[in-house]
């Protein structure tokens, strides 16, 4: 970790960045985000299998973007990002939310993270995104740290579950989602933690007209979860944060992953993988499959 601390400290000392967004250890099997502006404070920085948060969510917050205003030095932000978090950064750049040259990406050779805090790191407790991860080395970075290590083997049970749900008859599938969405308490933690849910004013916050009832009853919950699934289709990078934080334990990853598979099948596109390819929603191709148009 000394490499990370040394590098971050240097960035701050030279005034190259206004802040370093990183992780600090809080207990043996838990880390939490920390935003560091003073060089000495970088000693708290860590990177390990417990760095679950996708810190890219902070990059679009005005209060973080403007941290540089205080020291009058740089508006650049350094961020420690797992290779999969880099996908979110790429998606945000592609959607014109942040500038590549204002972000300093410190990334790592990554062999996976645990599914939630408090678990031992092994195949049984591997985060489901790591099971199918193709980018243990980041696609984009300004500084690469960490050694290459083997990712534990694990079964892709999430995909099996998706296939199971696909096979369900229509009414059974509806019943499955109804019972899951019934648990939603509308805390919007899924939205808050999602780097791609950066709207200044979410459609659920619009009252005139009111598109989505704020009530957490069946109709309101359905409307919310379905609209979020739609708004993230072809945009979700699969970081799994929404699923991890949902207090009602709704398997949101199943929905997002299914939509990602669909978008890839129809348009050969996965969000956040390339700075050269335009976004799916923001581009048009004559050969695009149009069977989705209503």
């Amino acid at each position, binding site marked *: 970790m000394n490499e990370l601390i040394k590098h971050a400290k240097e960035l701050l000392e030279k005034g190259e960045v206004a802040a370093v967004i990183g992780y600090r250890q809080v207990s043996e099997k838990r880390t939490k985000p920390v*935003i560091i502006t003073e060089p000495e404070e970088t000693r708290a920085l860590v990177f390990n299998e417990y760095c679950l948060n996708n810190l890219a969510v902070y990059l679009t917050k005005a209060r973080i973007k403007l941290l540089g205003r205080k020291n009058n030095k740089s508006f650049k932000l350094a961020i420690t990002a797992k290779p999969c978090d880099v996908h979110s950064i790429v998606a945000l750049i592609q959607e014109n939310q942040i500038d590549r040259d204002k972000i300093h990406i410190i990334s790592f050779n990554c062999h996976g993270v645990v599914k939630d805090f408090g678990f031992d790191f092994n195949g049984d407790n591997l985060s489901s995104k790591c099971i199918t991860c193709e980018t243990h080395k980041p696609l984009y970075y300004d500084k690469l740290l960490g050694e290459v290590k083997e990712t534990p083997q694990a079964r892709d049970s999430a995909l099996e579950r998706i296939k199971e749900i696909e096979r369900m008859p229509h009414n059974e599938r509806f019943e499955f989602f109804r019972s899951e969405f019934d*648990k939603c*308490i*509308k805390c919007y*933690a899924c939205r808050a933690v999602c780097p791609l849910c950066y709207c200044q004013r979410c459609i659920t916050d619009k009252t005139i007209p009111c598109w989505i009832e*704020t*009530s*957490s009853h069946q109709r309101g919950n359905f409307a919310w979860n379905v609209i979020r699934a739609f708004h993230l289709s072809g945009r979700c990078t699969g970081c799994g944060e929404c699923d991890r934080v949902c207090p009602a334990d709704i398997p949101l990853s199943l929905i997002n992953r299914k939509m990602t598979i669909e978008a890839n099948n129809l348009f050969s596109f996965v969000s956040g993988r390339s700075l050269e390819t335009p976004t799916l929603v923001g581009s048009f191709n004559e050969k695009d499959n149009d069977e989705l148009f209503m």
Partner: protein
Amino acid sequence: MDEKIISRVDLMKICKDVIDKGNTLLTPGAADYYVVKDISDIILDTSALPSKISHKSYVFPRTEPVLYYKRSKNDVQLIDINIDSKKIVILGAKPCDANSINIMKHLFNWDHSDEFFNKRANNFMVIGLMCSHFDEYCFCTSVRSSPVSEKGSDLFLIPVDINNYALKIITEKGKEFISPYSGYLKPGDEKNSKLITENVRQPEAAFDSSEVYEWLGENFESPKWEGVGNLCLSCAQCAFVCSVCHCFDITDEDYSYTEGRRMKNWDGCQFGNFTLHASGHNPRDIQSKRYRQRVNHKFRYYVDRFGEILCTGCGRCSRGCPVSIDIKEIVSNCNDNQKEFLK
């Protein structure tokens, strides 16, 4: 206080009777308090951590209609709601959760008596269960409670051996509830259960709530709020899982041009639009102000208004926070020892 001994088998018979009579029996699970359908689902584990979501929704539902309306050309007709007033027995409430209805009662009977809340609250029967395990987020002992606190319970259970509980009868309501089952009760000895409760490991007090109260009064403009405001993501996880957060929003839902209903829905003070005025002005326009409100409301304003801390120390808001903001850590740093709340 009256103390009895009841075997687990007999306690389960009482539970079965509660269900058979058509009442709701609630018990804590890992995710949520749930309605027991079959008594074999009952766990009664003193070492379980508080469930992710509290039992609050059974007394203060996350959404409920407060009236129906019908519009005609020159008139609006209002139709009252019949509040479902089933008896709810909550079995094995954590001591932190057991007192939450009492804490919220103040607010719902302040300038107006909220019949929706009161009717349900009066129908609640709380059977608390001693707690024998805490984690890094628990801090009941810092907010005038403890793992063996009987506050808020009508009846309180202390396991004395594998098969038996000491049953303390705390309130009149508890006495009334248990009297039809007196055949199941054997005489108990307070000395025995005291020996157990005195030896329960308790979280060390993390802060002195009266010092926190003082500090908050003098540090409304503290630069410390900015740091935590930078990290907080403005969701309502913390407020919605909390057993005593009670803010709600009123909104109308039209079914058609002539009919609709008025809803009372949970709301959370960390949402950016919580205090947004129709004019566009927002007195809590940035996250640091909103987080400051959360801490002040719990540890100062509520104390001012009702003499109670609006927090039971259960720690579930911290356990579930997407960015692991720990309210115990924050409140422990409501003093001038450290430049920042979180380091």
